[in-house]
């Protein structure tokens, strides 16, 4: 890969579009009924830099997971551009991608499923090194496994190396999964709801660990539906609705000075810890429409509390909004 300069963003996504064809029956196919598509991601642009944690938040079906999968080239985009460390990877074929896979790693939601129950902790963390033929000799590999376990705070590593997933707690399993991701020395971590399966008392530990990895210079893209977590741990937040980013900016600006009516509504319904600060929720009726039939104009207009006639016509672009620098929203009423 050329163009690796370390100065620009680690990942830059431009105008990404991903669609899935809706399955048609045989009859519908031979009678040439029109093919329908799920418009999962419709023109999404954002960047993640080294040492930055970006949270992609939104409700289920908003396209946040598809966006992450497209970045990792696990699904093929229809159009748009994905640049990793300055180099265009949108069209790279699988062999050319292989050395890049080492540099971008995925952490799954469920550590009960992402770890092979028959592999010891040592084997699970060593496996990526074997697959990528890294780490040199057996002793060197063992040393890297030990190092990775220390970095995820499973120490002393000797205590964990020979254990199996069923002997570990949920938090420890997720740490093993993270160790297996960072043992290759990646630049980018994509974490898809990394703590939603864990108990509250251990979530903070895993999130603080991701925060330290970020401090060490990793770029992290975290997919989450939990705005409170995003508010605490992200540098920037991008809010998605029906395949679009509708608001994006520094985490504190987005949370404390939301511009888009969807973001405002979402924030208003997040329950607070302190019963004295009970929210005055602005509850939107219904649920997001399915991504097969996207509403005209602004896709949020059918549920928007401040919609006007123009919203049915104009598809708003993501433009600077609010007082914070780098804060943008896609709404003609902002």
């Amino acid at each position, binding site marked *: 890969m050329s163009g690796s300069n370390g100065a620009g963003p680690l990942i830059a996504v431009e105008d990404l579009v991903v669609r899935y064809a809706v399955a048609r029956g045989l009859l519908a196919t031979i009678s040439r009924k029109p093919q329908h598509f799920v418009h999962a991601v419709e023109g999404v642009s954002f960047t993640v830099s080294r040492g930055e944690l970006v949270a992609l938040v939104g409700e289920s079906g908003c396209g946040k997971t598809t966006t992450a999968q497209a970045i990792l080239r696990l699904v093929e985009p229809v159009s748009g551009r994905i640049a990793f460390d300055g180099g265009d990877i949108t069209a790279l074929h699988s062999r050319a991608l292989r050395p890049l896979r080492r540099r971008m790693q995925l952490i799954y939601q469920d550590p009960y499923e992402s770890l092979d129950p028959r592999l010891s902790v040592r084997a699970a963390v060593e496996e990526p090194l074997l697959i990528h033929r890294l780490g040199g000799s057996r002793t060197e590999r063992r040393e890297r496994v030990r190092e990775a376990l220390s970095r995820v705070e499973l120490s002393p590593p000797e205590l964990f190396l020979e254990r199996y997933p069923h002997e570990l707690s949920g938090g420890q399993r997720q740490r093993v999964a993270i160790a297996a991701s960072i043992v290759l020395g990646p630049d980018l971590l994509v974490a898809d709801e990394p703590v939603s399966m864990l108990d509250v*008392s251990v979530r903070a530990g895993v999130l603080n660990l991701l925060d330290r990895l970020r401090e060490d210079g990793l770029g992290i893209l975290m997919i989450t539906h939990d705005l409170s977590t995003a508010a605490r741990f992200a540098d920037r937040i991008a809010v998605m609705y029906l395949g679009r980013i509708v608001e994006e900016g520094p985490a504190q600006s987005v949370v404390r000075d939301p511009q888009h009516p969807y973001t405002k509504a979402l924030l208003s319904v997040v329950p607070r810890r302190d019963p004295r600060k009970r929210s005055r929720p602005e509850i939107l009726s219904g649920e997001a429409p399915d991504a097969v039939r996207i509403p005209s104009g602004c896709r949020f207009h059918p549920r928007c509390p401040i919609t006007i006639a123009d919203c049915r016509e104009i598809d708003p672009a993501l433009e600077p909004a609010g007082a914070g620098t780098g804060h943008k929203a896609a709404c003609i009423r902002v």
Partner: protein
Amino acid sequence: MSGLLEVEGLQVWFDLDRGRELHAVQGVSFSLEPGERLGLVGESGCGKTTTVLGLLGLLPPSASVAGSVRLNGVDILAGGEQTIRPHRWVDLAIVFQGAMNALNPVKTVGSQIVEALELHGLARGRDARLRTGELLESVGIPEARVDRFPHEFSGGMRQRAAIAMALACNPSVLVADEPTTALDVMVQAQILELLDSLCRDFGLALLLVTHDLPVVAELCDRAAVMYAGEIVEHGPVDALYHEPRHPYTRLLFAATPDLYGEGVPASIPGAPPRLDLPLTGCPFHTRCDRAFARCPQERPLLRELERGRSAACHLNDVVAEVV
């Protein structure tokens, strides 16, 4: 004091292999008044779900249950299934987390509610259909959707339908076990609003079982915090947040991220004790940041500290001695 629902000293054991036992619920007591909302909060494995399944007589045969569950003063647990069955769904109804499991996928939503009404002899034929329409309307589902199948409903709509079905016999207590856990935050808000209005408008008493402290803070008047099979603190939600009297309550709040909260959430080190082994001392002492000599020795009992507030922590004795 005779409440609507009074649970006293509820215990649940599960038989394991080789004659071992798991003591899942170790003496849980609480009461509920009409229209009141009580949160039963705790992390996975703390016994909160086992508690409510136990009081509804819904545990598998490998479980043994002891204690009393009084409904309007009458113990319904005393005679086992025989004394519980007349009250299950009729007085005490339950809504589970995954509404898909509560609904039969091959029957329309309406016909399932009609069936429940007819089974309990509350209405027949046309009357049952009319009542079904009313029930669905009362949870915000248009009557026109009576003949739809569960898969044609979104997650939020299915949860509403499950609530409508639970309300079919006009119960006085609704037990909701993680009713919003699998739902998106906006749909969660809709369901919480619905539960709130059901309590407010119909005097329904709510027992909300959840791991989610903010949801309890939002919806409930009081909460009982469970740890290792017992209630470790019980009180008004406001007091639990502002003046916790058990370190676990304080640390659990501190581990929960808040939208506008200052500071970084901190995890609680360690793990809960195994419930298939005998416990000595306070079950939380190995994870507690304020444990002292007495804690590993002697198990603290839940005791009333002031009216409506209780906690199971030796620190409360120490404070009392100092003051």
